[in-house]
């Protein structure tokens, strides 16, 4: 080689070629996707997350969940993911447009959890059906606040998510600007305070700034001691349903994080006890205390409660839900067995891409 110039040019050229080819061109092709909406501009999917979800995603990153769990469902012709009931359709780029960081994952020592939130029991949280039908009411990603005790006016939020949320808040408020969705739900904010905050107004009021995302996450995970008449949401074991994968409640997640082998003896997931706090019971057992049995159970007079990070993590996990159909991806037959409300697209049936 004679001079340096050709060497430099070659070194730079090969690098630039690869950089443009593998990052710039894809960015031009799929780097500016918008959420999908139906003709009326409602039923928007996906929706940005904030507040506890965002913090939960950071807990997820910090503790390396990604090194064992993937969040992507491969197509039925490529792999057995769908047969394993990890999802009803393959994941598509649009599913991830609001995620930062994105946790596709490269390892499955644990199950794929792209849809773990869709497998929450119906009375709780997002759920597959609601995801298909009416998550639009809450930019918090279809995590319906059903589990919330919601002592005040918010009681109206509880109950059938689909039915209550069908009358969407002004579509314009949502389509027009992502602002309300991105509303920062005070990650550090006192969770205990949220249920009694202005939250309950949200579903009824189309106010663009309505703190939509704030109440629901906390409602799911944080049954604040004072405000919780009902026991913590759901049972700490997966609810078995015929022909479907088991359902995972928030309580199940907490017990599983605290003591994975109490749920599945073969599991090799580490326990995350450092996200939980052991404390003496004061007046009554906290509503969010873990329902532990056997050797994991705390001594009499003590209880194990999740700290804020654990609650955020579970809120985040319960928000993982790709069950909403996408136009560009074919769903498996009968995809969302949803009580479709009037406004939603009647047919989630195969809509071939391209």
């Amino acid at each position: 080689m004679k001079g340096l110039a050709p060497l430099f040019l070659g070194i730079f050229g090969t690098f630039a070629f690869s950089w443009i080819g593998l990052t710039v061109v894809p960015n031009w092709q799929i780097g500016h996707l918008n959420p999908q909406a139906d003709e009326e501009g409602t039923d928007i999917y996906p929706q940005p997350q904030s507040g506890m979800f965002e913090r939960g995603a950071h807990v997820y990153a910090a503790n390396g969940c990604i090194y064992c769990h993937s969040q992507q469902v491969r197509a039925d012709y490529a792999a057995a993911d769908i047969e394993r009931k990890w999802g009803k359709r393959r994941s598509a780029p649009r599913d991830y447009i609001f995620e930062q960081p994105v946790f596709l994952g490269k390892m499955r020592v644990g199950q794929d959890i792209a849809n773990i939130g869709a497998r929450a029991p119906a009375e709780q949280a997002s759920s597959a059906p609601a995801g298909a039908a009416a998550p639009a009411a809450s930019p918090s990603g279809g995590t319906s606040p059903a589990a919330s005790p919601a002592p005040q006016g918010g009681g109206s939020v509880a109950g059938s998510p689909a039915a209550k949320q069908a009358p969407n808040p002004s579509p314009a408020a949502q389509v027009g600007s992502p602002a309300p969705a991105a509303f920062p739900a005070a990650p550090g904010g006192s969770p205990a305070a949220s249920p009694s905050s202005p939250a309950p107004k949200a579903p009824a009021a189309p106010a663009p700034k309505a703190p939509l995302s704030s109440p629901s996450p906390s409602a799911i995970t944080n049954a604040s001691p004072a405000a919780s008449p009902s026991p913590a949401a759901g049972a700490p074991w997966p609810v078995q349903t015929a022909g479907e994968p088991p359902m995972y409640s928030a309580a199940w997640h907490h017990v599983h994080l605290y003591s994975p082998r109490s749920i599945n003896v073969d599991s090799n997931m580490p326990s995350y006890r450092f996200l939980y706090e052991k404390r003496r019971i004061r007046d009554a057992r906290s509503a969010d205390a873990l329902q532990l049995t056997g050797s994991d159970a705390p001594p009499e007079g003590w209880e194990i409660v999740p700290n804020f990070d654990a609650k955020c993590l579970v809120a985040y996990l319960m928000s993982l839900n790709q069950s909403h159909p996408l136009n560009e991806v074919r769903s498996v037959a009968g995809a969302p067995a949803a009580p479709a409300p009037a406004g939603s697209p009647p047919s989630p049936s195969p809509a071939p891409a391209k």
Partner: protein
Amino acid sequence: MNATGIPLKEPAISAVAGDTEQLERAYIDASTRVPVLMFYTSAMAWLILGTLLAGFVSFKLHSPDLLSDISFLTWGRVRPAHMNVMVYGWASMAGMGTAIWLMARLCRTVLRYPLLLVAGACFWNLGVLLGVGGILLGDSTGYQWLEFPGYAAIILFVAYTLVASWAVLMFRYRRGEQIYITQWYLLGAFLWFPWLYAAGQLMLFVVPVQGVLQSAVGWWYANNLLFLWFGAIALGTAYYMIPKVIGRPVYSYHLATIGFWSYALFSSWTGMQRLVDGPFPAWMITASIAATILTMIPVATVGLNHHMTMQGYFPLMRYSPTLRFTVFGAMSYTVFSVVGVLISLRSVARYVNFTQASIAYSHLGLYAFFTMVIFGSMYYIVPRLVGREWRYASLIKLHFWASAYGIGLMTLMLLAGGFLQGSSMEDPSLAFSESVETVLPYLRGRSLAGLLLTASHFIFAYHFGLMLLGLGRTSTVPTFLNPVEAEASGGH
């Protein structure tokens, strides 16, 4: 040059030019002493730390309750800590140490501006320290291979700028018009790394790309780091060490040129094959699979070149530690690339994606290929820096065999385990936990391999420490693995 009659000698030129050349080389070596030893010593410290973390990670994977109550020792934090210590602490620092020494030698000029390098080493150490601390305290960014939090990344970048500007300056002072093939690789590595690192950081953290493209950028970065940074340094080193030790020029310079440019062109396009069947346009993945297959061209040319250079000289591996490690590394480059092609084919990837096989692939590249070549170069360079020869041939042999068997066993365990794990996962009639059950015995085997590697690293660190303390042999003859007489008396 050496009276023992072993054909381990300097290249022919030195015999002609005689003492001046030799003196000049000694002078250059002396000038590289402080910076190169600084990089090497730091690298060794990171290697030991990374090894301990690796053992911890490996054991925890099949014994998950070990120390799981402590947040900073949870598996999901120790694993990236191990990975980053090895990649940025050990491999990058040792690689830079070797590259600096080679640069000075090949530019045939004494090392200038050593303070740039000293400062670079200090900042780099600081960056890795902060980064690993950040990961353990829960500050990881969540992007594989780029887990270091922002504050650490900036320090690393500053440190790197110092080192790279030194390399460019050195090039201006070089003597002689010829640019040897090793310098191409080194110059490439020194320039590719900052572009790569900057592109990765910018597209993930400063102006983040949308959604899944973050994963694409992440794996593009990871694979290019493996090839254009570590691979380029290792290949450059092998191109220097093999001819140097056996005292024979590279077989074909023409082949070397083809090898370099095809390497730069094709290996930089790999990475997306790791995202096979993911939520991406199919062309991206197909392009990377094709590029991975095309990397067989540089593999073939480089492999052929090394093989033809070594032709007839393979018995020398009995004596020279440098040659033994370097040739092992160069052969592993072929294995690494072939495995890379196999696991990227869609029909195979269906099974091995999301399994331990991808861990095997990374270890083949970073350890069996890169680290072994660097070990070899350290056996060559360190005596020239401290003015002592390695003290115990037995320790070098132990180091080699523990490393070779360790990495071989680990790769086999992870590949076989990964394939079986994937097969169980692909069979929906089996419960998911079956796939984990399947792989557990292989993970225990991996832990065993890890013990071998741990032993080898401690042996090397001890030996290296002796050299640093000036406790090596004072001798003009390098330390050979086997005494020369042994061969005469019927060694086989």
